[in-house]
């Protein structure tokens, strides 16, 4: 996979993941091209497109378009499954995920994506294992935060006392 983009019906970008080095300008151009092409498709067309030498696979979930760019040898039908799996993971994490969840918690969407795909390839095929890793990472974050909170509270107390 070369890239994965999420954008809304109005063409606003909600997530962008690039698996190959692309100059900033080029990225903007690709995003523009993808949004124009995908949003311009008729409602009941097939989910595959051609763009330059890449296969583009896209799927609409509620108000969000999930769009990825593949090499010629990759399996488009499987790519649809990959997109679907990502949506399922988001759904499990946020509970009935909607676009707002992704807007306000974009960094979490990235974290989940980074547990699922690495370098454009699937790293874990079990939903449960994946969810457990994310939970554990989140716990680690809490603990850290908790610890630093405790430290700052303690330091305030000490400074007051002293």
């Amino acid at each position, binding site marked *: 996979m070369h890239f994965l983009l999420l954008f809304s019906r109005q063409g606003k970008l909600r997530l962008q993941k690039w698996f190959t*080095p692309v100059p900033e300008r080029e990225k903007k151009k690709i995003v523009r091209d993808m949004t124009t092409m995908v949003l311009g498709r008729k409602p009941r*067309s097939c989910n595959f497109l051609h763009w330059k030498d890449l296969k583009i696979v896209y799927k609409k979930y509620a108000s969000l378009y999930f769009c990825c760019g593949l090499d010629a040898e990759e399996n488009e*039908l499987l790519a649809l*499954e990959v997109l679907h799996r990502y949506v399922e993971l988001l759904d499990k994490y946020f509970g009935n995920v909607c676009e707002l969840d992704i807007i306000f918690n*974009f960094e979490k969407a990235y974290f989940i994506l980074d547990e699922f795909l690495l*370098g454009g*390839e699937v790293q874990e095929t079990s939903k449960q294992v994946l969810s457990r890793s994310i939970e554990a990472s989140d716990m680690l974050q809490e603990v850290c935060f908790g610890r630093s909170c405790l430290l700052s509270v303690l330091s305030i107390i000490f400074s007051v006392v002293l």
Partner: protein
Amino acid sequence: MPAPIRLRELIRTIRTARTQAEEREMIQKECAAIRSSFREEDNTYRCRNVAKLLYMHMLGYPAHFGQLECLKLIASQKFTDKRIGYLGAMLLLDERQDVHLLMTNCIKNDLNHSTQYVQGLALCTLGCMGSSEMCRDLAGEVEKLLKTSNSYLRKKAALCAVHVIRKVPELMEMFLPATKNLLSEKNHGVLHTSVVLLTEMCERSPDMLLHFRKLVPQLVRILKNLIMSGYSPEHDVSGISDPFLQVRILRLLRILGRSDDDSSEAMNDILAQVATNTETSKNVGNAILYETVLTIMDIKSESGLRVLAINILGRFLLNNDKNIRYVALTSLLKTVQTDHNAVQRHRSTIVDCLKDLDVSIKRRAMELSFALVNGNNIRGMMKELLYFLDSCDPEFKADCASGVFLAAEKYAPSKRWHIDTIMRVLTTAGSYVRDDSVPNLIQLITNSVEMHAYTVQRLYKALLDDISQQPLVQVSSWCIGEYGDLLVSGQCEEEEPIQVTEDEVLDVLEGLLVSNLSTPVTRGYSLTAIMKLSTRFSSVNRIKKVVSIYGSSIDVELQQRAVEYNALFKKYDHMRPALLERMPIMEKTASNGPTEIVQTNGETEPSVPDTKHPPLVTQPANQANDLLDLLGGNDVVPVIQTTLPTKPASAGGELLDLLGDLSLSGGPAPAPSVPVSQPPFLLDGLSSQPLFNDISAAIPPMTAYSKNGLKIEFTFERANPNPNIAVITIHATNTTEDDMTEFVFQAAVPKTFQLQLLSPSSNIVPALNHGSVTQVIRVLNPQKQQLRMRVKLTYTHKGSPVQDLAEVNNFPPQSWQ
């Protein structure tokens, strides 16, 4: 300084902005606050600030000033900081940035961190966007982690290794030992990523491929377990167990089985099993079937399996799901070259797909339909394709028209059918036809001598209806110019001749000249056509008048032509009849006319030139060039057969420039602004006899080469209109007891000559003089120098390849004088 606002707060605020300007203002304010916060080196809020920056970056605003902050976050000890830091790095610090390398040390430390989630972050970042230098530095760490027993890290390390190999292929060897027992893992995550790693290694290195072939039985076993095992809640997708892993294994098997009989045999059973047992009600099952079909078609599978695969594709074509139909058409396109007959069976379904509403499907169906056209089904297919041409979107028309022309050229059952088809395309999609098809069509029409009357009549009628489609108008005016006499004399045999007077014809042509719809090119065509009619019609005065009017035309091209034609009338009237005579039959100089759209493996490749027409033999020419360093380089250039003399007749000239320029890319509209430099020799294209004239001036044949049982004789002819062209036919015979196979004859001539090699009759020289291979060579010798030739022969005799070079110097003087 007050605490910076939280991320959610910022997002909420920005979303309330009603205009772009308002949003920009908010963002600029926040950026300023963030910048000052960064300057204060505030550790507590750095994470929050960078997160906000990343959000603003996603909206499209510049965020480069946060790059160093990301590095600081990565170096922090807090997990929260690291998480955001690495995310920032992946978004802002790709390898084109200067500070990218500064991450290396941090990543190295984190790869050895005590917490696996930190190691995971580092592996993820390295595997997504590590530069080559970084990969080189850290490959050792990745390799270490590849051998760990922690499956969480192992799977990430495997994909990280894939990235390292992609960036620095030389490091592939390094990971070889670690791959030893990757496949004996039970963990699906590790299995999946290991298969990806093995696939990458095998694709890049033939040695690795050989090495890993022995894994085929193991892979087959794993795949079998996946299919046969019962329901596994962890990996189940709609009743199928771990489809991601299944597809990757199938893909690896494809690579391992390609061009290897033993491996292919080992997989036959499992492929058949997957193909028959997989549930096809959902997309996921079809994804696996698709991969299976691709694998079956690529390896050396037995024919039963191949038929099974094509049938699966046939079933896909009938599926309601558009994606499946699309995928089927794409796959059939890949296999149509190798399994043509099997795909033919599904022709009617494919043709039905032309009527599909989906644009992507229509395009694939069109390409596939063209690939399936052959001599047997040409009439039926063409009917469908022409119907498609009528009703399709403009984006398809150009490709479809080109495809129709190409197919018609190859398989036309009769000349009349061919002309009718062309007419149909020109009248329905005339404005979409590619510019380079105009000269091709003209050549085609010229060469179908008996159809001239019919053609010009039909074109004339079409012109009366509609003068807006330029290619149609151009072809029509050219034909009327050439065959106008047939038109007015009412000689048509094929259909009811129409009654047309000379004046009516001239009216139409003059109408083209003045019409706003005509492009300058078209005007050029019609002026020249009018001029040609001066020798075919009796109303010369009218023509003289028209021509003189345009002598002062604003359009420079038109003016030049008119002035030259005027001069022809005034000073060179005695030459006029000869110059404007009927065009002779033209030789095709390139076999591929309009752009090919046949797809073979995957994407557009030029289709193999049809060997019915003498192709431009470029390959032997390149090798002939190798021979030539001693003779002084020679370009094998096609001999342009007919050009008219330089001065007035740019009509023929422009066409021949087009013929000379015929290339696969389709040149711009044929409108040379000045008559292009004609070849230095004067060919009289005036005679209407065919070029290959068998009246040879009795030049004796000669033996050019005789060695090791192979004898090559040259026989000579003159290309009649042009005494400078010698046409040599080589006859290769074999007196030994074994056939000489893969026989290739190549020739090279000195610089002052031009050489054209036509295709040989075959490449097997039968033993004991049971037959011979013949091949035609045309040599242009404008300077009448002594003909010399160097020949290179390659063939396979008694199983071993033979190659020989020889010089041929004993040409009879009559062949070059």
